[in-house]
């Protein structure tokens, strides 16, 4: 392994790394908004409603096809549909968002449905409207539940962005392989990419960990009832 080469090459990967971060975070933001909206719709949708079928069908479609096919589909089918070409960055955002929404619908649905039914009933019995129940009771609790699976989804998204190299978006992986083929330092470039992806995902996980423990800390269960009882006795 040629370590000096890896260090020298680092500056060439800064801009591509920025692109990877940009495309992943913008996609995550858009996908989370869409995922919350569609996931809630899915939860409040009555059984056997066509809207529910559509959402379910979409989730199955995304889960059942490889991301590389989804990326090619956006790359080759979107321009004739739109009548013009999106810049590559936005094409990437489109592909990753469409993919991630499919998973986030399920994350939101599971989180909201994990709030005990009794809370709905209790809230309704004291006269709260559906909107208030959703905004004040269910979503704040579901939001906290959603953070760990969303962290998973974020790391998946960052790694999936490497597949955008097949449509020649000059992100981290594309830049890494370009440099590998002009310098013939293939293993070094793979190692460097692995380190950068790892560091990026670690940083983002610390961020979501902070959200979980500091911003959404309400409704946090005591770590164990036993210790509390012990505290009282002592």
């Amino acid at each position, binding site marked *: 392994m040629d370590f000096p080469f890896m260090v020298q090459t680092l500056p*060439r990967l800064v*801009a*591509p790394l920025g692109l990877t971060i940009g495309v992943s975070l913008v996609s995550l933001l858009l996908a989370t908004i869409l995922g919350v909206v569609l996931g809630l719709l899915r939860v409040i949708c009555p059984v056997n409603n066509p809207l529910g079928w559509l959402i379910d069908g979409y989730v199955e479609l995304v889960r059942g096809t490889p991301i590389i096919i989804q990326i*090619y589909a956006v790359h*080759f*089918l979107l*321009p*004739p*549909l739109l009548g013009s*070409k999106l810049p590559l960055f936005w094409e990437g955002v489109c592909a990753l968002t469409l993919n991630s929404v499919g998973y986030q619908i399920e994350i939101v649905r599971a989180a909201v449905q994990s709030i005990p039914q009794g809370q709905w009933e209790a809230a309704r019995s004291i006269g709260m409207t559906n909107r208030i129940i959703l905004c004040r009771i269910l979503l704040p609790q579901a939001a906290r539940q959603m953070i760990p699976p969303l962290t998973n989804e974020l790391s998946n998204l960052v790694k999936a962005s490497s597949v955008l*190299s*097949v*449509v*020649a978006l*000059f992100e981290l992986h*594309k*830049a890494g*392989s*370009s*440099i*590998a*083929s*002009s310098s*013939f330092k*293939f*293993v070094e470039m793979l190692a460097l990419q692995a380190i950068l992806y790892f560091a990026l995902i670690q940083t983002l996980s610390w961020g979501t960990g902070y959200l979980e423990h500091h911003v959404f800390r309400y409704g946090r269960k005591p770590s164990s009832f036993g210790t509390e009882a012990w505290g009282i006795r002592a």
Partner: protein
Amino acid sequence: MLRRKAALTLGGSLLALTLALLGGGIPGSAQTDNSLQKVMDAGKFTYGLEAQYRPFEFRDENNQIVGYDIDLANEIAKRWGVKAEPVDTDWATVIQTLYNGGFDLILGGMTATEARYERVNFSIPYMDASSGLLIKADSGIQDRQDLGGKVVAAGAGTPSVQQLEITAKELGIQYNGEIRTFDNDAIAYEAMKAGRIDAYASSLVSLNDFAQQNEGFAVIPFKSEQWAAEYTTAAFRKEDEALRQKFNETLLALKADGTLDALQEKWFGRTFGSLPEAPPTW
């Protein structure tokens, strides 16, 4: 009956829609050819390549795309009074992207082949694309005949794959396992360094470039009467004849005044004088 007919109509329109979507780039017969005019009006032409093919196109220390093809494109653009802009793309889908309007032409070290000719028209050759075999210098392989019992490989979707198949049949030899294919040369070089393959078939010039920069490798010619001489050409959409004619005229002028020789000297360290002056057809 009615339901069935309705289903057929729906199926028909879905099919038509799919065809329309997929066929967005298939040439319409009644179109007028304004391909050259469009380039002149825009003041630039774009050309597709994958910047992972030394020395034709690769990225320099500033991530800029450089190489033989880039110099050639700039020279042609200069003579037309326009700008030339490379578009880095995925080589496996380069022809599809050409028809999707991703760029005006392909200028990326493409070898003219019969299969590709079904989709695109070629320019006159601007480089020799003869095949070579990369081997370890101490492997004892001296000729095609010695490939029997060895692990052989080639780039996915390149003519070298067929040439390896032809070689096995022609000489009655058997390789060790199937012919391996790799997405690009860099991965294959690494596989060879790791001892996973014994011989790698690709274009002679790109293999030479690698062997010159890396110790312990050698390149031998890979030739047979069974396949035609191979040339590197630019590729155009079937309907873009005006653009192709103009490109060919300029290329002939570059050959005549020695500019092409100078570019070959710069990037390959030698010239390839006797290239045919007619576009390859089948």
